[in-house]
């Protein structure tokens, strides 16, 4: 037995060295740290208003946010992640009065969020490992090891794939060009392409829909006002969600009886408001904050 253990030792050393290196250097884990920091800051500051959603809602970070406003939205978050955050808010923020939740159609697509493992430590704290991801506590702990973390592995392999596809050039060239400098036809092409990817398999995951309902009901039970919100996007991006799917999403949202339902999807048309096809820039965000203030009386700015 000893000889077997001795032979296995070099493999184990290599394995743990790689993991340590990845944990310390990978952008994935830097993102995790950013993610946790944001949640921790909300836990500490206990804002009265919180935003939940993906990168579209996250754009409120471009504003000089009032101390009453908390930004818990994060790029690539899905319904499950939003739900876990409401559980965190339930435990740590009794002052909560309003929650803005994203009702955008892409939230109801069939993709798996790459952020799910970022919430492991909170699930352990909440003693709630099985409910959402159906993972044991042991799973949540072992996912701390990068090479045993499915999300990290997906991120790593996709990076490798894009490097190979782009012939060794890792970055995407589109991102460096300003949205206003792009021709209309090119804008339409880019927006449509992203729209197709983001609106795949809308309303096909019943499990997510149940969680969404639960999320709203839990907040309502705590007398927290739930405001649905759709952020402005390029029209060609939104067009990629077919009418039938969009109707399904709208019907689902209407049946939830949210305290307010704000749809700004096509409220801002000028390219000057946009960072890209589906994200506002600072000017756009300032413009949107005025609309939100007008409709809800909530001032997002300091």
């Amino acid at each position, binding site marked *: *037995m000893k*000889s*077997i253990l001795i032979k296995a030792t070099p*493999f184990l050393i290599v394995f743990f060295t790689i993991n340590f290196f990845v944990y310390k250097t990978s952008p994935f884990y830097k993102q995790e740290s950013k993610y946790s920091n944001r949640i921790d800051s909300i836990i500490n500051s206990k804002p009265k208003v919180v935003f939940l959603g993906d990168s579209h809602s996250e754009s409120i970070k471009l504003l000089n946010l009032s101390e009453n406003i908390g930004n818990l939205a994060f790029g690539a978050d899905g319904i499950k992640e939003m739900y876990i955050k409401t559980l965190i808010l339930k435990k740590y923020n009794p002052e909560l009065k309003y929650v803005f939740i994203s009702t955008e159609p892409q939230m109801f697509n069939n993709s*798996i969020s790459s952020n799910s493992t970022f919430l492991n430590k909170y699930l352990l704290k909440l003693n709630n490992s099985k409910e959402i*991801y*159906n*993972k*044991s506590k*042991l*799973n949540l702990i*072992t996912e701390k090891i990068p*090479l045993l973390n*499915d*999300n990290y*592995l*997906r991120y*790593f*392999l*996709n990076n*490798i*794939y894009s490097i190979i*596809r782009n012939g060794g050039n890792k970055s995407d060239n589109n991102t460096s060009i300003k949205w206003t400098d792009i021709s209309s036809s090119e804008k339409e092409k880019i927006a449509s392409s992203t729209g197709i990817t983001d609106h*795949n398999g809308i309303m096909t995951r019943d499990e997510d829909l149940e969680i969404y309902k639960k999320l709203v009901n839990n907040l309502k039970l705590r007398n927290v006002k739930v405001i649905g919100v759709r952020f402005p996007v390029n029209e060609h991006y939104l067009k990629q969600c077919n009418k039938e799917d969009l109707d399904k999403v709208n019907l689902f949202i209407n049946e939830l009886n949210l305290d307010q339902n704000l749809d700004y999807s096509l409220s801002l048309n000028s390219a000057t408001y946009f960072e890209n096809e589906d994200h506002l820039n600072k000017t756009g965000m300032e413009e949107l904050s005025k609309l939100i203030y007008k409709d809800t009386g909530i001032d997002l700015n300091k």
Partner: protein
Amino acid sequence: MLFNSFEFVVFFVIVFSLYYKSYNNLKFQNTLLLISSYVFYGWWDWRFLSLILISSVSDYIIGKAIDENSNKIQRKRLLILSLFINLGILGFFKYYNFFTESFTDFIALFGFESNPLLLKIVLPVGISFYTFQTMSYTIDIYRGKMNSNKNLLQFMTFVSFFPQLVAGPIERASHLLPQFNKKRKFDVFEFKEGAKQALWGLFKKIVIADNCAFYANQIFENSDSYPGSVLVIGVIFFAFQIYGDFSGYSDIAIGISRMMGIDLMQNFKSPYLAENIQDFWRRWHISLSTWFRDYVYIPLGGSKVDSSLRRSLNIIITFTVSGFWHGANWTFIIWGALHSLFYFIQTAYSKNLNTVKILPASLVKVFNITITFIAVTFAWIFFRAESFTHAISYISEIASSTILVNPLSYFKEMGSSIQPIIIVISLIYLSVFEIANRNASYSFQVGHYRTPVKTLIYCSLLLLLIFFRATNGAQEFIYFQF
């Protein structure tokens, strides 16, 4: 508790450490295996432990009674009692609703209407496996092929031995039971070989099966939305999913048993390299096909009957019952019946082919393997489909002109671009070992290579396990539901 979960790793490390420390104490070894097997099973649902307990105790008592009784009629009655208990439990949990519904549908054909009493029955994991295992024990005693076991602890350990409890191999008492009657010593060679086989099984499960499942599940669940070309790939992926899933489980079960000094029977032998349907069943789920051969086909008369019609009927019955064993659904029965049909077609075809010896033998072999794979894969459509109509619409779409549609864009929509590449590389890796070790006890046999080559192969397997594993969490094994 799944073999491909961290819970199992922790569980096995604890059990093995205690087991390793107790190499001089047979009673402790068996007690430990029994307790750990019950913990392993109870992890899913402790209530169903009672069923294993009923099967174990009743067959222990009945087996002993048959052995001690010389009266033929009484021996037969005792055997019937054992079969009644085992098949009664299996029938209730697995087939009650199917028979009730089928009966209602049948009488409805004659204009009689009834409201069937359908029950919400949870199917206990692995019930078909351990039931068949204990049944073979009493049948073999009745046939005088073995003596009854006089030690209840040993017998209970035999019935519930955790590595093969929920998905086989379905062991024969004459092979497995005596192994619980002698002390197991730690054997470095067996430990290493067992660990390798378990790792190979893990590769088949988490790399091959779970990656293929990602696409096969989407395609079968939304088959109306895809063209024939995608459906063809879907069923091929399912063929490798079910093979990787089930043979992977068997390899892990056999591997970890070897690590503990217990020898389990081989359950798979590169089945997709079979040259005909008969050969396929000599290589696929061997423990079940030999069970049906010994306890159904041969008692029916097997091939030693005068009429060829009767022989054919025996084959049809055996295949169909084997299909029904898999589940209470007509699709499984059709799947079994289809195999018997293919068997007859291929027998007739090979007779004709043998008379025309134009093609070189190796080419004929490749041709036969291909034809057999196509036939087996076609039959998988019925196995995987939700219903008979689903299977028919799936086949109709394949037979339509949409078979010519480029499937690539559909795969892009289904998941990441890299996953199909991972599947292709992994299948090539699997095929290399399957072809190289077509008739070996398991395909990852590399002991004959020089050390550097061996090290390279082991490293490649570890790398595939880490980087090419499916990233959608630990998936259940398909055969648990049977």
